């Protein structure tokens, strides 16, 4: 009995240390974001500094394009996720429900695309976008992002469709719709959980993307928030407070959504990997 208590205490100590290490940088950003302007840079380690103020937030919103960056990110990300999920939903349906010539090889192609390092394709994508005169535009970004999460989305959705009994569509077909109608009216509404996972996945991937945005967007009005924050942080001394404020504003909602959905996200991940 006593041994067990000692063990539990040790476990708690270990976990508290680990949790501190995990959360500390975030808490530091928070601290910096509410420091007064003249003391942004300091070796002080207190969580809530003396004379805490929201000046950095106000400065961020007033003096930079931060809201505009968020809006840019939102437009690009929403459009990307919408395209990605709609393409994936039909393709996954074809893979889940039909036997057709080339199905196996198409699945292998899907897996193989995962082997191509994303970083490797930035250059040709960049050149394509340049050639199409889409540099520094939403459309260019959307084109660059739209298929990056497609194989994974197809994989998740296929796994989910596979769990829906075939007889549901057959019932719908007997009830008077075609195959597409059955998909539209029965399968899609039933797949909302998987569709939201796929959407979320697409969304986070595009939302947090930095490297493509860095080369496609060049005017600071068109920046996504990742670029904007990087720029703020780059000029370390002067704008560290604004960077911290911006980070807080971006991170907190993302964190909440992630924690709320992490259960499904993880099950989706394992679904994809185990079934693959």
């Amino acid at each position: 009995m006593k041994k067990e208590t000692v063990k539990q205490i040790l476990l708690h100590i270990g976990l508290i240390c680990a949790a501190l290490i995990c959360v500390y940088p975030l808490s530091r950003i928070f601290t910096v974001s509410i420091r007064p302007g003249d003391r942004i840079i300091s070796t002080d380690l207190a969580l809530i500094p003396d004379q805490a103020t929201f000046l950095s937030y106000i400065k961020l919103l007033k003096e930079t394009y931060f809201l505009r960056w968020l809006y840019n990110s939102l437009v690009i990300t929403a459009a990307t996720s919408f395209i990605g999920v709609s393409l994936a939903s039909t393709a996954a349906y074809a893979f889940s429900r039909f036997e057709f010539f080339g199905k196996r090889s198409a699945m292998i192609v899907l897996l193989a695309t995962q082997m191509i390092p994303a970083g490797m394709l930035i250059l040709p994508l960049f050149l394509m976008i340049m050639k199409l005169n889409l540099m520094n535009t939403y459309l260019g970004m959307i084109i660059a992002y739209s298929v990056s999460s497609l194989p994974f989305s197809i994989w998740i959705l296929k796994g989910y469709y596979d769990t829906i009994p075939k007889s549901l569509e057959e019932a719908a077909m007997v009830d008077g719709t075609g195959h597409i109608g059955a998909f539209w009216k029965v399968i899609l509404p039933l797949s909302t959980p998987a569709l939201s996972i796929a959407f979320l996945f697409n969304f986070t991937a595009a939302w947090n993307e930095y490297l493509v945005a860095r080369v496609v967007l060049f005017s600071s009005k068109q920046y996504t928030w990742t670029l904007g924050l990087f720029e703020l942080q780059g000029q370390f001394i002067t704008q560290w407070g604004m960077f911290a404020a911006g980070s807080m504003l971006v991170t907190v909602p993302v964190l909440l959504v992630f924690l709320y959905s992490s259960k499904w996200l993880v099950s989706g991940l394992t679904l994809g990997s185990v079934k693959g």
Partner: protein
Amino acid sequence: MASVNFKNIVKKYNDNLILDNVNLEIKDHEFVVVVGPSGCGKTTLLRLLAGLEEITSGDIEIDNIKVNDLPPSKREIAMVFQDYALYPHMTVRENMSFALKLKRFPKEEIEKRVKEAATILQLEKLLNRMPRQLSGGQRQRVAIGRAIVRKPKVFLFDEPLSNLDAKLREEMRIEIAKLYQNLNSTIVYVTHDQVEAMTLAGRIVVMNKGIVQQNGTPLDVYRKPQNAFVAGFIGSPTMNFLKGKIKFEGDFFYFENNDAKIFLPMFSFPEAEKYSGKEVILGIRPDDIVLDSAKIDHAHKLSAVVEVIELLGHRENIYLKMGEQRILAVGEAFGDLSPNAKAEFSLNYKNIHIFDAITEKRINP
């Protein structure tokens, strides 16, 4: 209401022959039960009729119109699935009105029909529930309700009772029988349960290995099975089969093997002479084994040893051992036999079934 006609239906999956030249005519208002062991092609037959699968060759006609190329939605059929296939994201009401909505029926008409069906099936109070809130029997009723609101030409039932427990199954069986009396429509019903087939059917189609083995009224199929497979499949408990030769001895024909020698009266096997000395299979239902000493044919009685007695309540199953051959007989409960006792019996000659040992076809009338 409509007739259904299967003409030379062949269905192959890759090289697997699922249905081998099936011909079947179903008349208007008929309740046809297709029965057979799993994998016999009965469900495939139903799915072909529904249009859920494509025919390899042959024609299907509904109401004398060829429907081979029509999609399921255009065939005016309704189907009750084995797992009910209720749309999980719709209420009972929405489930039942889905098909009518697709056909753009006026709202009042939909409401009226749903109400009608709900009354017949006692679903009025459940209309606003979701399928997951229903019990198995209720789901079953909703599935049937979804079919009847459509007033289709043909109803298809795909093993609708197999997911229910025994008691519920009996209840639903009665419901379906009642429904048929009310609707008086053409029904094609697929099951592997021969009890359902016997009790519900106006006509039974017994299938095995993609071939229609027999097609007739329940009584016909029970009393005069056309081959050994049908004989063994229909009837519970199963028929006893004995393998042996026909022997002619002193003006009479006998069935003989190592374990027994059984007298065959002329009326039960008029063609005996043709088969004299040939291998045959003799089938006799447990009910047709006479144990009651008052009714036994004492001149040709057989004797065996009682092996096990299973008491079922009102009756008992008596397993007899005649040489190496085990024979099941059915007797009144609490008879005077006990295990290891010697038992004497004879056969009810009116109901013996003789099959050719090679073709397994019935050879007595």
